[in-house]
């Protein structure tokens, strides 16, 4: 059974959400933040999330989504949860774009902004770096807003995919940290739709 190292609301939520969408059994091992030496000494993972699946040990939430859907759980392909390079390279490119954007372009600035508010003295909350992160997030989430402008249900069309898990988690993270005002209206409604999914609701309880 796939074992996941988890902290509630951390990026491990992405992995659990996917496994809930697939109805795949899994085992959660809760860890505490900040990560202690025992966790770091496990090797091969780095930070949360990590999984152990037989002799495979890996980290990085988006990499885990790709491993699970692209190889480990073949029914992901039948369910359309991932998009391959064939037959349509343009659809594949769009899928990859949003899959990566959810972490690299949205979570990177959001996490730094949230960390400043959580850990820095209050006088630093509006400092140059924090405001720069906020501008970057706003600029990048505008790409999501534009993508949703034609009324589509999900980022790459009608089908729900791991790109929605990637971006949806980043939006959820921002909303949970009381930065909801940074999310534009279509993206906000999209997050409402994703949050209502039974698999997401179950994942929140893990």
């Amino acid at each position: 059974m796939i074992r996941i190292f988890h902290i509630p609301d951390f990026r491990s939520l992405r992995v659990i959400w996917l496994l809930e969408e697939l109805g795949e059994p899994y085992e959660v091992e809760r860890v505490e933040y900040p990560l202690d030496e025992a966790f770091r000494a496990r090797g091969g993972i780095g930070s949360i999330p990590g999984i152990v699946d037989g002799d495979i040990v890996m980290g990085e939430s988006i990499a885990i989504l790709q491993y699970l859907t692209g190889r480990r759980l073949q029914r992901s392909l039948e369910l359309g949860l991932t998009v391959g390079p064939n037959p349509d390279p343009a659809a594949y490119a769009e899928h990859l774009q949003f899959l990566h954007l959810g972490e690299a372009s949205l979570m990177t600035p959001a996490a730094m902004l949230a960390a400043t508010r959580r850990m820095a003295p209050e006088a630093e909350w509006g400092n140059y770096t924090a405001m720069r992160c906020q501008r970057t997030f706003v600029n990048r989430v505008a790409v999501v807003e534009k993508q949703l402008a034609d009324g589509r249900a999900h980022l790459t069309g009608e089908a729900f995919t791991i790109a929605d898990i990637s971006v949806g988690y980043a939006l959820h993270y921002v909303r949970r940290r009381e930065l909801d005002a940074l999310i534009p209206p279509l993206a906000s409604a999209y997050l409402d739709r994703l949050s209502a999914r039974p698999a997401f609701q179950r994942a929140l309880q893990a």
Partner: protein
Amino acid sequence: MTITVFGKPPTRALRVIWMLEELGLAYETRSVDFRNARRDEEFMAANPAALIPAMVDGDVTMSESTAILEYLGARYGPTPLAVKPDAPNYPKYLQFLHFGEASLCGPLNVVVASRFMAPDDQKANWGATAAAEMCIRRSVLARTQLEQAPYMAGEEFTAADISVGYGLHVLGFLGLGERLDPALRDYLAKLQERPAFQRASAV
């Protein structure tokens, strides 16, 4: 049709150009003045969000550098640079492909911006300092991998090395190279000696 890359080294366009050089594909580059990007009509037409780098390949436009590495490997492969899903080292490959950006390079954005653009009293503020330390701390995972194999995904050079190598290259560019473990510095030097890297960084 020739692939067009908007942006040049030392931005993340270097990852894309390095990959194109490793693959031996024809491409052209367009520099973008990022302070005035929104007034650059050709760039904005290709990429309305004004993100750098951007790549245009026929009807495909992308702007996330590590996503572009995956796309190029699949579209113009098969190539040893892109590990296949059924290969034993696929999980490692994926992990380090993402690690290079999500864990290593991402936090450096604010370090670069604060160092080069912030007012003097903000150049080493809380966030800029914390981000650089986070990046150094996280580089240990790549160091651990080098105890197992010469490259991130195992015995062979892959796009995961382009992803991680670029992150280490930026740390060096920021003058933080000496904070890296010697094994990582040697690994970076080995990557920088590759002819494709040299051609890409000279663009």
